[in-house]
């Protein structure tokens, strides 16, 4: 773990069991570059069986987010959990990820991002990063964006995910900086 972070607020990347530690490191690097916050990698919640729903054979992401938020360490601004399990919210058949809007925790599942065995590792990693920045965007109070190339665009298919850029559009950029400014004004307790 990174000790140079000291007393600065940071983003925590939390891999669940089954996630390659190298992948978690790579994600944390990309997220850190993107948001300009220090990033720590720490498996806050390794086992998510408590969220397993046997009827659906999937994991309830809303329940996982609540637990993550409870476990948030001091000065932790946002938590990004990464899992290989298939996620759902009760009203939907599946989700790629979920976030607490303007909250602390979000989660991304790599389960459905790597369906095609022909796919290069690089492509899959790009998808994971896009989804991670998208879900983190929600925790910074960003909603879906109608701009198809914006990373906050809600994509109906993986093709759309591949088509969108890994950047926020100019509007979402402004809204993100609003959220970051207001975070620095009244930091979370």
């Amino acid at each position: 773990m990174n000790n140079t972070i000291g007393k600065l607020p940071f983003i925590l990347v939390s891999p669940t069991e089954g996630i390659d530690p190298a992948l978690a490191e790579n994600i944390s690097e990309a997220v850190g570059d993107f948001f300009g916050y220090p990033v720590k990698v720490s498996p806050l919640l390794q086992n998510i069986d408590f969220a397993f729903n046997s009827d659906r054979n999937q994991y309830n992401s809303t329940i996982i987010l609540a637990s993550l938020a409870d476990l948030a360490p001091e000065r932790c601004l946002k938590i990004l959990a990464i899992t290989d399990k298939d996620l759902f919210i009760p009203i939907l058949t599946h989700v790629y990820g979920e976030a607490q809007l303007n909250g602390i925790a979000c989660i991304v599942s790599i389960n459905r991002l790597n369906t095609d065995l022909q796919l290069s590792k690089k492509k899959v990693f790009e998808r994971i990063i896009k989804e991670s920045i998208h879900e983190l965007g929600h925790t910074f109070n960003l909603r879906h964006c109608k701009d198809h190339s914006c990373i906050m665009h809600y994509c109906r298919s993986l093709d759309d995910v591949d088509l969108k850029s890994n950047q926020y559009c100019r509007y979402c950029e402004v809204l993100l900086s609003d959220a970051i400014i207001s975070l620095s004004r009244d930091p979370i307790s």
Partner: protein
Amino acid sequence: MHQTRVLIVDDELIIRESLAGWLERDGHHIMTAESGEKCIEILKNQSFDILLVDIKMDGISGMDVLKHVKEYYPDIDVIMITAFGSIPSSVEAMKAGAYDYLLKPFDPNELGVLIEKLTDHQSRKRENQYLKEEFKERSRFESMIGQSDAMQEIFKLIQDIQETKSTVLITGETGTGKGMAAKAIHTSSPLKEGPFVSVNCGAIPEQIMESELFGHQKGAFTDAKETKKGRLEMACGGTLFLDEIGEISMRMQIDLLHVLEERVFYKVGGTQPITANFRVVAATNSNLEKAIQERTFREDLYYRLNVIALTMPPLRKRKEDIPLLANHFLHKFVQEINKPVERISREAMDELMLYNWPGNVRELSNAVERAVVVCRSHTIEAMDLPIVSPECTGLNTPSVPGHPSVKTLNDLEKHHIFNILNENEWNIARSAASLGIDRSTLYSKIKRYDLQKNISDS
């Protein structure tokens, strides 16, 4: 704001919460109700664009909710939430006017497609309404009239600022003549030879707002068959009037702030910078300070707009202007309709003076217009006015038609709103239009006066 307003009606907490969460992240304004009863209650006070209703609920069923909504709020699109076992009733619901139904759990893509289709549908409706109202608006008020102190102050302020080109923010209730004030500011300013371009921010659907304001380059998007000038460009050398600025979307707020700061803008799809050499006058009837707190309106944009502040007084605070205004409208409509009506009787004028005018000058104008139409002699009598209709019955308070002296102003208002609602079969949009107030104001008044449709006509 043109956020789509969605009401979720489901007796299962977990369904309400997860659906609300998803739709909120999707950018919509969400409310939830745990029963059909609660839903009907909420609808009395708030308007929605889309209802998502669980078909199977105890008490008032989803089907009953659908029927109620289709009868009283036909503008709302209803989607039924269905479980596997209740598909036959969903088909029945479609026959009863539901827009569509979704099987639990929803495929996120299906839900997304459906919501997008509905929001498109809703904004097209808004666009049509916008075109209609724009036309109506243009044929109304031309000049500001008033001898009251309140109006004299407005005239003085407009005179005081006639040398400047600073941005002005006009506040005031609906129907107080904010548009007229903007026009007056323009015609007394150094820019008076230039154009006065008005934009009703509350009426233009978001999809076309950007191209309406900024214009577009040919080929910028599918419908952009030709290069088009936007309102900003049309306003160059003159005044850009942004009415209902409180309704503008967050995206447009960001764009407008940029224009006001940099004094330059681009057409959609364009690369040539256009200099923004126009003055901005904005108006709103909403509380922007509150909107800033709720983070729906940008503080930085507010300060850019609120360089000079002007507040239009409500008509009830300048009642001494009513005779002048009423006679002005009388002559105007008499000419328009070509009817030999010459005056307003003393009694009728007393009624006009007593009434509270929630819809302000616009409502007064509507009332006089109507009176001219129904009047059967050369003189408008009290009974010709929509505010003292003799056939009114059914209110809880004892009323003596034609003798308003025994009633308070609020009684009169309650009475009048009740009559207009009945005349329009409780169609909120039509009633609000005829009262000259917006729908949300009407809803709050219905709530305040506890007006109900089904009071027996005893």
